[in-house]
């Protein structure tokens, strides 16, 4: 299957600074894809270059298998939630969405129903006729999300979609994205790794405009190869090693977290069936069993911290 978005060696310069320095990225169709990276890593630039808002200095971009973005071929099939952009302040919400829908080519008989549904989704139905300038920051953000899903585009690029949303609205937007999984390709750039972990099928780590690693979320957090047991009291490792000799164990410094790294033919089920009875018999007291690692740990392990600012002490 053709990837929804491919970037090969893309370079984008702002003056002398290279925002993208040969970025490679392959976003599978129908996936929810996360972009992770520090501030200035190039996530926003990568999305803007893909949507044709920024012109790359070098490299190849292929959007939906139709080459680089061109409004004539991609218009209506790709949408973007830009990070720091404001809507025209004088227009009314439904007029603005209708305008965007017209430009996208959403059929007139479907447009009104689409707008109703989206406004309901982002809890703005009661503000339908309000001018945009009267909306709060969070409402503006919800409107930005609504416009990105207008007309069911094939590729949706979301730059920090959950920024500025309250917990309830964040949860609603997460549900919205989950609901679209498989039907649309959704690329999310976010600093909130917990959200990405909850939403994404695949993730790419970007630093200094380059790809550090891209893989499925399962592989990155080793969901199928690692289990961590959090214990109430330390246990004797020799008993465990004898019970499951093929498994490699790591113990935290206080001895309360045991991490098992395993390979086939072990599965989480078979491993737990062997390990848990041993732990319970030893009186360690199992407080928690965690499958895999987490995105934050893997991100920190894969990306070196930025150098200290010039003149910093220590």
């Amino acid at each position: 299957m053709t990837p929804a978005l491919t970037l090969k060696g893309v370079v984008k310069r702002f003056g002398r600074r290279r925002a993208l320095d040969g970025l490679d990225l392959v976003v599978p169709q129908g996936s929810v894809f996360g972009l992770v990276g520090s501030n200035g890593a190039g996530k926003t630039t990568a999305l803007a270059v893909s949507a044709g808002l920024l012109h790359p200095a070098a490299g190849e971009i292929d959007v939906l298998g139709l080459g680089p973005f061109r409004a004539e071929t991609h218009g209506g099939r790709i949408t973007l939630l830009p990070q720091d952009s404001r809507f025209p302040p004088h227009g009314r919400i439904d007029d603005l969405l209708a305008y965007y829908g017209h430009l996208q080519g959403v059929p007139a008989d479907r447009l009104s129903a689409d707008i109703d549904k989206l406004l309901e989704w982002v809890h703005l139905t009661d503000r339908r006729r309000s001018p945009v300038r009267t909306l709060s920051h969070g409402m503006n953000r919800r409107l930005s999300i609504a416009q990105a899903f207008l007309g069911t585009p094939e590729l949706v690029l979301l730059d920090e979609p959950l920024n500025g949303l309250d917990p309830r609205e964040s949860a609603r937007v997460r549900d919205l994205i989950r609901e679209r999984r498989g039907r649309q390709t959704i690329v999310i750039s976010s600093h909130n790794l917990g959200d990405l972990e909850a939403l994404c099928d695949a993730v790419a780590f970007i630093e200094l405009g380059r790809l550090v690693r891209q893989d499925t979320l399962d592989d990155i957090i080793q969901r199928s190869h690692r289990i961590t047991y959090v214990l109430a009291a330390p246990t004797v490792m020799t008993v465990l090693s004898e019970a499951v000799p093929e498994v490699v164990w790591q113990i935290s410094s206080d001895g309360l977290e045991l991490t098992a790294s395993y390979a086939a033919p072990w599965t989480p089920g078979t491993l737990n069936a062997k390990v848990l009875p041993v732990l319970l018999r030893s009186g360690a007291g199992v407080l928690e069993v965690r499958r895999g690692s987490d995105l934050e740990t893997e991100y920190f392990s894969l990306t070196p911290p930025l150098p200290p600012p010039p003149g910093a002490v220590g």
Partner: protein
Amino acid sequence: MMPPPVRTLWAIARHELTDSVRSRRVIVLILLYVAGSMAATLLFITVLQKIEHQLAESLGVQAAAGTGTVTATLWKSPAFRHMLTELTGNRELAETLLDIPPLGLFFGWLSFAFTPALVMLTSTSRIAEELWSGSARFVLFRSSRLQWCLGKFAGQAIQILGALLLSAVGAWLVGLLRMKSFEPAATAWAMTLFAGRAWVYSLAFLGLALAVSQWCAAPNLALALGFLAMIALAVVAGVAEHFAGEGWRRAWDVVLALTPGGHKTDLWWGDAAHLLPACVFLVCLALAYFAAGYARFSRRDV
């Protein structure tokens, strides 16, 4: 999925028009323009009232009581006809102008003089504002950059036509209420024609305004640069007109033709032989200025 280009263009133009009208700044500017044109018409009538007695006396025509009565008589007098021929340097043009009611002629002058400034005030920041606020980023993956800019051009052009027609209505009403020898139908027709000609003339300035707006992403800077460009064009037109002549000095005619001012005189004529080339040239100038801006905009990051 993309709708046909003309439909997209129309959707952008319609949105541009409503968004521009909804912004209080543009409404205030248009109202000020209409009020200004009404006030200028009133002033014209008042001054006319004061000077027509002296003119009647010096040219030896019959004096009357109401404002404009003498002017109407004066308009038809051989002495005034001769004076206007001297002023325009063309007997035919003078005859054409003498067929137009005085208030219609004044409205034409007013529109040619002040519409370019209105265009600069209302249109120079339109694209720059959207680049500045980032709202263009919600649109430019939905339509092509060219469609978006052309749609904005069309929306602004409709807005200017509206402002010109409104100011014509205002000036006509002032004439109706304050001038005794007012010819309602003839003046209305003349004003409508001049509103149309001033609109075509202002299209060149609209092209210039949107070119500046495409170059510059800061609205206030765009406004300042727009006015500078307008003044520069007026200076170039003046210099070219002054130095144009025979031989190598014909080159100044080419320079003059590249400015809107170079075609203004032709817009005063009533025949298609003068009007049509001027209109075509002005529309071409509008597109050329616009294209110069678009050359940068098509390659810029937004």
